[in-house]
């Protein structure tokens, strides 16, 4: 089977919900995840936040973030359940593993080129503390424009 995917789920609970209700929603999410063979990697309660616009006449909401790894079917089921829950006024599921991989790759590639260029200039591969920032490519663009 394919490798598990990582998803981020953020849901907003109505501001008049009690702590127990918030906990109950979380429990439901957790049990659904476990039942369908996923793992709950992280939970983060952002607490009460002002909404940028009114949702169902609410001006505030309680935000909860969950990082889940599991299958697409699991997320589909979660999505369906969250839609039904009355306390949850809004939710968003985003797949993040692919993007994370891209970010890591660009970061690694940049570090690599930086190290290579520094070595070519006869410097140690890692930037030192308090070293002035160089904008080597600035001049190149300048002259290109002057020619045009």
């Amino acid at each position, binding site marked *: 089977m394919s490798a598990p995917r990582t998803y981020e789920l*953020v849901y907003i609970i109505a501001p008049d919900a009690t702590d127990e209700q918030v906990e109950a929603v979380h429990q439901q999410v957790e049990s659904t995840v476990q039942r369908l063979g996923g793992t709950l990697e992280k939970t983060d309660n952002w607490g009460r936040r002002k909404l940028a616009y009114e949702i169902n006449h609410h001006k505030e909401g309680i935000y909860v*973030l969950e990082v889940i790894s599991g299958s697409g079917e699991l997320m589909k089921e979660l999505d369906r359940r969250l839609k039904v829950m009355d306390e949850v006024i809004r939710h968003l599921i*985003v797949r993040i593993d692919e993007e994370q991989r891209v970010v890591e790759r660009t970061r690694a590639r940049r570090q690599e080129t930086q190290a290579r260029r520094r070595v070519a200039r006869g410097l140690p591969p890692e930037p030192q503390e308090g070293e002035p920032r160089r904008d080597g490519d600035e001049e*190149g*663009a300048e002259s*290109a*424009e002057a020619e045009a």
Partner: protein
Amino acid sequence: MANGRGRSGGRGRGPSRPERGGRRSLFRRRKVCKFCADKIDDINYKDVKLLSGFVPERAKVLPRRISGTCATHQRKLRRAIMRARILALLPYLAD
């Protein structure tokens, strides 16, 4: 990085180019893609502080010609703003 710069430099081509070019270099600061310059790889929808700099009063997405963001990052920025809007972290419209 050089890409975004080159594009902003290539704008406004016309018959009076040499003169305008000179004026530009005097008065207008060269626009640089913020994400390239600051090496922000991950434009995340949860980072409201970062995103709100790209949605002026009216809550529209700030166009590239003004912000100087490169195409790649403008695309990612747009995605992030749209996600943030779903979660009411950013408004769809404001007046």
